[in-house]
């Protein structure tokens, strides 16, 4: 394994990156963001991507989540070669396999907590009753059943993020991607959200890839991967 390649232990890999590169173009100037990344993340892992601004951690997360495409290399996530999928297939793949947790929650302000959680299920073809059951389960898991008819503006930041987590898990995806999930929260709410993510990993076996600047948040993960100028710098196993 070269310096830019990590294997985070045993187990069937859910994410396999081979020579992943990503560049942006500013007119004729190529700006490389990721260069030749090789990485295997086993199913059930909880990985924190860390590094300074501009190191490429969010770009790497976006590639893994299938919302961006690499300029080089191949990536296989949840059993699918993402390079082979067209845009519509990739959208369907995301709906089935990936749950998103954003820094700013990104709930739809005109929908209730219940309706926000129900959104991804609209694409699944499930009937109304089945959807309601799944939403109820997800909201129960994040302990927000009593707030299900509240609109986002009627919730605290921590509650909004828990609704966002319920939305991320309601389709029972294999992979959760989180971009600075505690970045907009105070310490207490951040701890709650991290605890919830940890439970999702340990009790429900969800694979989680999280970008964070926060060492406390990163400490919840089982592995920390540090990026530096678009290459993998080091991987650390977290001892708890």
């Amino acid at each position, binding site marked *: 394994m070269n310096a830019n390649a990590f294997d985070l232990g045993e187990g069937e890999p859910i994410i396999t990156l081979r020579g992943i590169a990503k560049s942006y173009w500013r007119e004729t100037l190529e700006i490389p963001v990721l260069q030749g990344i090789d990485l295997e993340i086993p199913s059930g892992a909880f990985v924190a991507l860390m590094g300074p601004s501009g190191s490429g951690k969010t*770009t790497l997360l*976006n590639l893994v*989540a299938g*919302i*961006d495409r690499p300029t080089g290399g191949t990536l296989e996530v949840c059993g699918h070669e993402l390079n082979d999928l067209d*845009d*519509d297939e990739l*959208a*369907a*793949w*995301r*709906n*089935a396999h990936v749950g*998103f947790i*954003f*820094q*700013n929650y*990104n709930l*739809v*302000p*005109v*929908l209730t907590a219940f*309706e926000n959680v*129900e*959104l*991804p299920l*609209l*694409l699944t073809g499930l009937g109304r009753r089945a959807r309601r059951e799944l939403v109820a389960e997800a909201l129960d898991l994040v302990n927000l059943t009593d707030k299900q008819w509240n609109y986002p503006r009627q919730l605290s930041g921590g509650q909004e993020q828990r609704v966002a987590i319920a*939305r991320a898990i309601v389709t029972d995806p294999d992979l959760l991607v989180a*971009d600075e999930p505690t970045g*907009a929260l105070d310490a207490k709410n951040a701890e709650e959200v991290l605890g919830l993510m940890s439970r999702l990993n340990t009790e429900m076996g969800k694979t989680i890839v999280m970008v964070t600047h926060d060492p406390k948040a990163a400490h919840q993960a089982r592995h920390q991967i540090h990026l530096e100028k678009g290459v993998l710098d080091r991987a650390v196993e977290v001892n708890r």
Partner: protein
Amino acid sequence: MRWLALIWKSLLRSRRRTLLIVGSLVLSVFTVAVLQSLLTTLDSVTNNPNSGNRLAVRHKSGITQMLPRSYETYLRQQPEVETVCALQWFGGYYQDPRNFFANFASDETTIFQTFREEFGLSSITEAQVKEYLRDGAGCIVGETLALKNGWKVGDVVPLTGTIFPINPRLTIRLIFKSSRPSDENVMHFHYKVLEEGVPRMKGLTGAFWVRVHRPEDIPRLIDRVDRHYANSAYETLTETESAFNLAFVKMLGNISAIIQGITIAVVLAILIVTANTMGTAIRERGPEIAVFRAMGFSASRVLSLLLAEGVLLVALGAALGILLAQAAAGGVRGALGAVMPFFADFEITSATALLCLVGALAVGLLSTFIPAYAATRRPITEGLRSVG
């Protein structure tokens, strides 16, 4: 939650903006519906199906100039002619100048034959006609006009002249029903009431209405009559009833061009306003669109949702605009139907309503598609970067 609920809730994101855009759509569709209906109404004036075998003979210099009533003899002698009726616009009102309606001094002996379709002769008895002919101060009125004023047979109606300096008191001898409301907003009285009350009108009339046996004879008759009176003191202009009505409508100016011009201006204005509003609304939702797509909504699915929002918005505005126009049409019929009889037929036809609805939907699609397409083609990562 269903798709429609999602679309509806998204529309109500900014209630004030939605209300304002729906309001502007309502007014625009209302304006277009009323103007187009006005065109349809004016068009029906010049395309009256009953006009096919009637001619109007008037002074070549215009409808305010008179013709000698003696011309009637020549006209009657023409083999193509069935009847001739002298007709003069009286222009009187009942009690109040606002109670203005169409009233004519007409030749009582030929009026029923000349305009038999308008009078619905099957519903008029011979006794009623005789009663009218017997009473020189009698008059006949259409049912709509009678109902509006609460008149019944035997009532005396005092008319105040506005063109001629007489105020005849006329007794209603007959109330007729017609197939078109516009034909019922009319009063006719004996021609001699005008001739006896206004000495300068003795032996003169504004126009003759000529009914021919066969419509195909009309061109030949027109040519013959006008040639006969060419270079006389009272030269004639003979034309079909439709052409006469068209000339009357044209006195209002080139209404058709004005209406079409205003319609185009309104449609363009609302297209720009809607496009700007939808563009702003969609741009503001860039991050949300990115989140939808991240969750698995395909670009075409998001595009469909945004287009559905635009279409629902304009459909709502258009439907309300059409309803408002329907309500206004009733007001127009009531207020103007008596003054200008053809307005008694004023209505928002289903064809006009459909045209407005389809036009509005086209505006909705057109104004939403460009910003929506651009928003759904934007990379997801770019949309997410603008969050917060």
